[in-house]
């Protein structure tokens, strides 16, 4: 049975193996380049702290278009990689057998349907985990420089989603649902379409925006109106989930405009002909800003909710666990579909 499953899927394994080698060939030299450049710059900045740019390395290092492209492309590629596993490994695994009628050939050999399915699933799931694990390990190692420079690996979707253990869980999720949809619809193209839509909806939209922020109760900080006061209360590396300006009645404004201000503060702005834009902090900076002073007097303050950086690995584990549970559901459904339904 093992020989047979390997023989059937060896081309797929080979293609992904080649992709992995190509990826490593890109990741290892550029990762080294990032790290060494960063270390050298750091060392020279220590000797010469007056050098311009030393105050803010993240906006001075790796600004060439190639480096910028790499820094965006690699995490994005890893985020989308599970989709490829779902489409090219998961969806056709059973749908092709049903479509070609070869399930009837396989199921009338001297092997039970359950054993046939178990062997096939084991190979594909283990291979997915191993390959996704290799891709994620390379990416996590490669991303240590941008993580340090941006002082973040938590807040941005592409960095949380492309590093650590979650990519492995995404891969298993995509492959398992591809398999289950294939067994359900029995048509590869239908399964491909459905798993594509599901992955986009769940892994790229719903979970990062609506589910992940709630794995643990966020920490709330409050500060009077004024530039930089709130930010100074949020530790580095934290994932800020929301910022609000709150009036004296406790009403929160996610976006704060002129008309949200009390009349006396609006007058100051109209007098100085300075508009306010967007959220939060008043435009005209500087200590003792008359608008901030006015808002503080009127009982306004600002709040932020964040997940601190020390929760990073907890969040990775919770999210991976959630996707593994979904994977288990898809696998259970696959067993049911294959064993209980007619050929």
């Amino acid at each position: 049975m093992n020989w047979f499953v390997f023989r059937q899927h060896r081309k797929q394994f080979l293609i992904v193996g080649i992709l992995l080698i190509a990826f490593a060939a890109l990741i290892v030299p550029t990762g080294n380049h990032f790290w060494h450049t960063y270390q050298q710059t750091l060392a020279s900045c220590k000797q010469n702290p007056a050098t311009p740019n030393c105050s803010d390395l993240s906006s001075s290092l790796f600004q060439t278009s190639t480096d910028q492209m790499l820094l965006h492309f690699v995490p994005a590629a890893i985020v989308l990689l599970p989709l490829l596993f779902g489409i090219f490994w998961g969806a056709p695994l059973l749908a092709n057998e049903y479509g070609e009628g070869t399930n009837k050939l396989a199921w009338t050999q001297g092997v039970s349907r359950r054993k046939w399915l178990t062997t096939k699933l084991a190979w594909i799931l283990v291979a997915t985990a191993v390959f996704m694990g290799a891709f994620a390990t390379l990416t996590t190692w490669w991303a240590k420089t941008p993580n340090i420079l941006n002082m973040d690996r938590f807040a941005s979707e592409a960095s949380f989603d492309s590093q650590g253990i979650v990519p492995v869980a995404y891969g298993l999720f995509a492959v398992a649902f591809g398999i289950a949809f294939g067994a359900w619809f029995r048509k590869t193209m239908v399964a491909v379409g459905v798993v594509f839509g599901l992955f986009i909806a769940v892994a790229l939209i719903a979970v990062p925006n609506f589910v992940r922020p709630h794995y643990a109760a966020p920490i709330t900080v409050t500060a009077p109106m004024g530039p930089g006061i709130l930010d100074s209360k949020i530790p580095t590396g934290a994932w800020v989930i929301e910022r609000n300006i709150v009036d004296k009645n406790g009403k929160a404004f996610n976006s704060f405009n002129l008309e949200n201000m009390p009349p006396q503060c609006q007058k100051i702005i109209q007098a100085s002909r300075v508009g306010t834009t967007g959220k939060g902090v008043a435009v005209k900076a500087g200590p003792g800003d008359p608008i901030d002073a006015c808002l503080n007097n009127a009982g306004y303050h600002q709040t932020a909710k964040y997940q601190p950086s020390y929760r990073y690995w907890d969040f990775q584990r919770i999210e991976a666990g959630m996707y593994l549970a979904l994977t288990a559901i898809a696998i259970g459904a696959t067993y049911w579909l294959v064993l209980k339904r007619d050929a």
Partner: protein
Amino acid sequence: MGAAAIQTKGLGKRYGSFWALENCDISVPEGSVSALVGPNGAGKSTLLKILVGLSKASTGESSVLKRAPVQHEDFLSDIGYLAQEIPLYKNLNAAEHITMGQHLNKRFDEQHMTERLKELKIPLDRPVGKLSGGMRAQVALALALAKKPKLLLLDEPVAALDPLARHDFLSSLAQAVADGGLTVVMSSHLLADLERVSDHVIVLASGQTQLCDDIETVLHEHKLLVGPRAESKDLAESVQIIHETHTAKQSTLLVRLSKSAKVPNGWQQHEPNIEEIILAYMGQAQEGDAR
């Protein structure tokens, strides 16, 4: 011929509100080669799939090699099955199919299969997707036979083949039967194919069994009677009329007579061939549908 290799009672399969197979009672003796005939949509494929455990019956019982057909290794080892579309793994060559057979079966005669395919001049190293339809059918048959099954179920295996390939396929099958120890059920809607190899016939039409007996008995008990139309009504009371055609004065009846029954005076008696008998049974089922 000894015990029954296949025995079904009241077997039925429903898809939604449609009964693809209903009240199917058949008995296939061990060592026989049964022709399972019927028009398209008669339930032949459904019946074979139930017998091999690929489908579950909605009602009724079936015993195949004295077991209930289930997806169990011991059961599957004794059964060879060839589905209608003759499925094979297109990217795998014949030699790899042989290796597959070795890996997926406890008992598999790879040597015999290799020799047989070489005899038939089928290239072992070419992906089977690139072989002709006739060659693919031969590979699939050899694969099913290499399991050394006690029962071989073939679902319209020659339907898609050209006459020469059909002849070669049936020759291979006849050879396997001659080697002994094999019960075969082969479905087809082409009567001529089955006559060559089979000794037992099952007629399935409108999802129901119309006839299930060995061909010799069937031939012996069926007569074509030609006589005055006026008397045909009376005759219906004493014999089983399968099919009747009438002209103004004359009636032609295909009837089943028990051994003791006598042909009444004034009726001419002819021996119908198996094809005529089978067609009569299919016609009867169709008339039943129309009513």
